[in-house]
């Protein structure tokens, strides 16, 4: 924490812009992967292999007319998309992109805000993100939007619990809520007989990993949990009435939330920046983190290409009747094992 505040701002600025470009190309990635799943080509016309498609989409959205329904609550309608966008992008602040390195006499910390409750911070911010959806839905004064907003509220509150509780096992094993500590704990190499394996939490907390993955998909409102926007039932749900750049804030927010969730999952379960050569080279560590993140993003797209959508009551039933007992079981077992090892 010795670095001056201006340096922190520069790091934050760089990471934010990388994230925005990453989001733009996440849409390209999704379209291409989805196209491959569905025996199609995906975008090919804009630029070589359609690589400029995200930019064209952005320009198009900027140029569209910004429609506001006559009966909408204007102020709430204005700022609701921003809530989604800002909260999505804020939570990246606590993700450790590596330890620190020295450039021109300055120590650059690769975590923007090294909070001692980093993991909880991500959860807190993502739970605030749902306000963007609920308020946007309410402000549109459209019944499809309202139903989408209600679904979003119930869904996010339920799956937030699963998401948070699935991490408790990790907190018990690490003894810290700091994401840096969690990565450091996973960087240790365990020797079991002749084998040397990394202490990634996916190995010691497999059940928690699966539960986290399910809850993370639900938390980001993606298929098969995309009920708030279910386009075949609710005609896009909460953002039915949004257009132009206001709509794209929702879009940006959703994709950035996916990227952040993937980064978060990689950090918590797949060792974050840990990987061969990551101790000596910071950039190699970032590369490993990105590879793991892309794995999760691919998983998101894979789900979307394969699975039908849950029904509202089934979604809630799974959260409360299946996932919650499992996640509590995981906590009890982890705590018992930890207690037995300690004593």
């Amino acid at each position, binding site marked *: 924490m010795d670095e001056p505040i201006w340096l922190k701002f520069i790091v934050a600025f760089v990471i934010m812009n990388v994230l925005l470009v990453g989001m733009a190309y996440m849409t390209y990635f999704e379209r291409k992967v989805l196209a491959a799943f569905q025996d199609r080509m995906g975008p090919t016309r804009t630029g070589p292999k359609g690589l400029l498609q995200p930019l064209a989409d952005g320009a198009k959205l900027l140029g569209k007319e910004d429609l506001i329904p006559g009966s909408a609550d204007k102020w709430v309608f204005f700022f609701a998309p921003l809530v989604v966008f800002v909260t999505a992008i804020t939570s990246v602040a606590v993700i450790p992109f590596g330890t620190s390195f020295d450039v021109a006499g300055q120590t650059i910390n690769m975590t923007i805000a090294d909070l001692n409750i980093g993991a909880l911070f991500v959860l807190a911010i993502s739970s605030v993100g749902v306000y963007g959806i609920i308020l946007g839905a309410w402000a549109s004064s459209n019944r499809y939007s309202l139903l989408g907003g209600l679904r979003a509220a119930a869904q996010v509150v339920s799956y937030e619990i699963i998401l948070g509780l699935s991490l408790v096992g990790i907190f018990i094993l690490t003894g810290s809520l700091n994401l840096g500590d969690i990565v450091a704990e996973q960087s240790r190499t365990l020797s079991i007989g002749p084998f040397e394996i990394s202490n990634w939490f996916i190995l010691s907390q497999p059940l928690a990993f699966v539960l986290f993955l399910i809850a993370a998909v639900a938390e980001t409102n993606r298929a098969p949990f995309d*009920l708030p926007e279910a386009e075949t039932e609710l005609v896009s749900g909460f953002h039915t009435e949004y257009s132009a750049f206001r709509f794209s804030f929702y879009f940006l927010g959703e994709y950035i939330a996916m990227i952040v969730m993937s980064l978060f999952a990689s950090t918590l379960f797949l060792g974050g920046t840990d990987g061969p050569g990551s101790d000596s080279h910071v950039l190699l560590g970032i590369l490993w983190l990105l590879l793991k993140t892309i794995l999760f993003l691919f998983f998101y797209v894979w789900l979307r290409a394969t699975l039908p959508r849950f029904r509202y009551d089934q979604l809630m039933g799974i959260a409360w009747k299946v996932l919650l007992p499992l996640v509590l079981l995981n906590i009890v077992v982890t705590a018992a094992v930890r207690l037995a090892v300690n004593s």
Partner: protein
Amino acid sequence: MMTTSETTPSVADFPADYPSTGSLSISEDRTLDDGSHLITLNMGPQHPSTHGVLRVILKLDGEVIVDCDPVIGYLHRGVEKLGESHRYAQVVPWTDRTDYVAAPLNNLGCVMAFEKLCDLRAPERAEYWRVIMAELSRIASHLVWLGTHALDIGALSMSLYCFRERELILDIFEAFCGARLTTNMMEIGGFSRPIPPALPGMIRDFLKIFPERMKEYAGLLDANPIWLARTKGVGVITQEAALSYSLTGACLRGSGINYDIRKAMPYLVYDRLDFEVPLGTYGDVFDRYLVRMEEMRQTIKIITQALDHVEKMDTPLMAYESAYVIPPHKGTMTTAEDMQRHFVWVIKGFSPPVGEAYVGIEHSKGELGYYVVSDGSSLPYRFRVRSPDFVNLGVLPHLAQGAMLADVVALIGTIDIVLGSVDR
């Protein structure tokens, strides 16, 4: 003294909350006895999963449907009236536009009704080809149903897979008659054009590919717990309800009622072909899905048999001996007599004997009936289409009450409607 209201009920006799279908209006929200507030949701006519321009007015208690009222007529083109103002051969293309995903089947029913009116039967070879084309059309129609039904429930990729295979069928149609969607394929009396030599090969290629693709669909859906959860136990139609709503097609057979016109009242050459009719036992969305999937497999069997048989045949395709059939094109370019005869026939059409005819065929969606009355002129006196989807759609309010909002799209999908056919 009797008042009018005692003899004929007027609007004033019914209280405002009279519980009948068609009583819902979008402008009013309702409050239940226990004080809970009902939301009125207007679904459609511009909605991604009402399969066209169906409008459904829903009264929702939370996500649970209390009342459901389908509103139709947004795609009404007056096909029946158009049928009465065109010559017989000109009516056939209009039937393409009713159920536009299964045009050859519509053509088939129409020309069979006209043929019955004229007491005329197409040659055997033409009947085999009619069976092949009708069954291909059944697969195409079922593929559109499967793709859109799965898409409604959220299985995004299924729609693209289904349309990929449908493309192969449309290619066959294009090779056969030159058009892909509105084929106008069947003619009164058989087929006036020769069968393209490449056609049997194309069909055999499709028959080879399609069963493998069917396994892919089943792998994606049958083994998927979400798909099972969304379809099993949803939209149950009991046998009593199926009969009282006079459902036909997969909606009827999914409830375990053995009625397939191809078996019950065989037409064309179906009595010579070996195939089975699948029946469901639960009568829910999943049973109807299974029934339609099995129907596609049986259809493959039918086409294979018919194709094996017809390829060896070298008999005429058109019943030229009949006076009600358009004369051959053969001499129209060379001899004046042939040209005149043809010209007069096209301009004046033909006049069937006075009488009436009804033909019901097993359409991909149920019983498609054509009723035609002739007064001896060259225009039908009455042309009536009994479209299966219109009748089947009537069961939607019965199914939707008590279901959840997300089920409505599954229910619309499972009834398998095409609004062109519902509204006609």
